[in-house]
């Protein structure tokens, strides 16, 4: 079928050059080869008929077809747009038997730099300049134009031109003007209106090739962006702790899932001197690459601020208390976070020798807690402002420390809003704090790993069929009675 359509289209074009050519041009590329074969077959197996000597129609058609084919094949061979224009210029010259020609290209659309923006054929740049100036004075810069005696043209009246016949033909795509093609002959009255038609076919084909090259370039670029995102995703993954701290005083289990290749959630651990552990969780507003950069920055802030201060006078001042940490982090972030961005975070310092912890909540989700002695599940209610919202020293007034003594069997559930705001049901229902609390009430007696799985199974059941629209992080910490470490 394609062969038939292609054959009919190309041969009908050649038979009747007056027809509109642009409508079939877009699919010509696909069927050009087949179509050309069909036409060639027709041409060569035609019954022998006397061909008038002054009109060598068959060889000329043959040339035209081959030129078209060359233009079409350029894309397949992966050549450049410069080559397409070169072939266009040569094909056009051959087809209308021009004595000279030039091609003005628009650097803003063709990607060809200013210095190469004109291609010449048997013509000196000065000659082209003279002609261009003379034409521009009396012609719109755009549009098809044939003149058969330049000496009659208003721009050249009275001058004696080396060239007398001229065709001006813009190279137009659907959205862009790529440039203008000029063909010239020494003799007057040597271009026919049909020459313009066949040349239009060439420029249409060239535009098609140029635009296909552009499509190929964009798709390669997209592919590269995808590759780079994959690398970013791997880098980010390496920022998330893989080896969770272990000790016989507690169990930790963690889960994190980014909504896109990279995300803005983070958590980290750091063993501090003495039997203490710092745990941080955070959520950068927004998603994607920007959020991922700030997430990495937050991790850096955590590791640098949680260094032991060698000048500290007493044990307590060696590391910043959580509220101090948040104030310092807020100052550090103030300089680089965009105005509409902020970070929520909670920092816990667990002292498992004393059996207590201190934490500060900077606008982050409330901590869910199971109190073993009271057999009660509750959310810690404490005030605290997110980071990057107030960018001056007054931030310190908006953040507080909360101290708490824990008992063996207590469970702490730390998470980001991607968990409680996960959508399910008809797409507007949120998972919610209440449902999370109920799940802990049903699972607190299990170990940390199983509590986490129990919550996640319920969450996945709830969101089933809905895409995740925010990064999700969930940490479960279970405090235990001290048990001797197993002998290695």
């Amino acid at each position: 079928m394609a062969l038939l359509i292609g054959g009919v289209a190309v041969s009908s074009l050649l038979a009747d050059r007056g027809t509109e050519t642009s409508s079939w041009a877009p699919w010509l590329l696909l069927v050009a080869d087949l179509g050309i074969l069909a036409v060639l077959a027709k041409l060569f197996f035609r019954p022998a008929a006397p061909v008038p000597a002054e009109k060598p129609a068959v060889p000329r058609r043959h040339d035209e077809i081959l030129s078209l084919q060359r233009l079409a094949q350029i894309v397949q061979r992966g050549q450049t747009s410069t080559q397409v224009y070169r072939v266009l210029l040569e094909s056009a010259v051959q087809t209308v038997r021009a004595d000279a020609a030039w091609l003005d290209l628009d650097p803003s659309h063709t990607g060809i730099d200013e210095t190469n923006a004109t291609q010449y054929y048997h013509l000196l740049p000065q000659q082209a300049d003279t002609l261009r100036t003379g034409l521009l004075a009396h012609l719109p810069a755009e549009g098809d134009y044939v003149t058969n005696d330049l000496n009659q043209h208003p721009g050249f009246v009275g001058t004696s031109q080396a060239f007398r016949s001229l065709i001006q033909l813009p190279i137009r795509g659907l959205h862009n003007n790529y440039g203008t093609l000029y063909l010239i002959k020494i003799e007057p009255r040597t271009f026919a209106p049909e020459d313009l038609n066949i040349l239009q076919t060439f420029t249409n084909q060239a535009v098609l090739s140029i635009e296909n090259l552009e499509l190929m370039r964009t798709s390669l670029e997209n592919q590269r962006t995808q590759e780079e995102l994959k690398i970013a995703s791997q880098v980010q993954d390496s920022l998330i702790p893989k080896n969770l701290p272990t000790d016989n005083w507690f169990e930790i289990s963690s889960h994190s899932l980014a909504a896109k290749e990279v995300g803005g959630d983070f958590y980290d651990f750091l063993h501090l001197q003495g039997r203490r552990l710092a745990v941080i969780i955070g959520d950068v507003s927004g998603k994607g690459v920007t959020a991922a950069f700030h997430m990495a920055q937050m991790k850096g802030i955590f590791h640098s601020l949680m260094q032991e201060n060698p000048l500290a006078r007493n044990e307590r001042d060696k590391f910043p208390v959580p509220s101090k940490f948040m104030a310092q982090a807020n100052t550090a972030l103030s300089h680089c976070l965009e105005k509409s961005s902020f970070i929520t975070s909670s920092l816990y310092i667990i002292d498992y020798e004393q059996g207590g912890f201190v934490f500060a909540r900077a606008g982050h989700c409330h901590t869910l807690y199971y109190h073993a002695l009271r057999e009660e599940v509750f959310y810690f209610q404490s005030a605290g402002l997110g980071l990057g919202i107030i960018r001056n020293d007054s931030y310190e007034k908006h953040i507080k420390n909360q101290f708490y003594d824990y008992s063996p069997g207590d469970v702490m559930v730390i998470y980001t809003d991607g968990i409680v705001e996960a959508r399910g049901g008809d797409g507007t229902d949120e998972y919610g704090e209440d449902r999370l609390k109920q799940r802990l009430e049903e699972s607190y007696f299990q170990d940390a790993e199983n509590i986490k799985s129990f919550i996640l199974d319920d969450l996945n059941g709830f969101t089933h069929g809905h895409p995740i629209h925010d990064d999700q992080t969930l940490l479960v910490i279970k405090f235990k009675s001290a048990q001797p470490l197993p002998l290695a």
Partner: protein
Amino acid sequence: MKVTAQPSADTLTLLLDGELDASSAIVLDTELAKPDILNYRKVLIDCAKLSYISSAGLGVFISHLQRFQDANVKLVFFNMQEKVFNVFEILGLDALMTIVPSVTEAEAA
């Protein structure tokens, strides 16, 4: 998300209708970024029909907070649904912004 502006003598009331997320945040930002908004003494945000606010939505208010304060323009939220209020509260914004139950308190604020 629809933002309707109701100007009166010295007060501008903005009615928010729908979900304020990353895609609709730009509509509100355009409204709040207008230079002549600083000519009002008060800007009241009617949240009765605001059904959801994301961090990008909060970011819009946060990014204009300082500018309003510097120009002495009072920003007051009212008629806020509990779910939306929770989001402000968790982030600690309730201590920073004026959030009142109804239009009566908002006009008195």
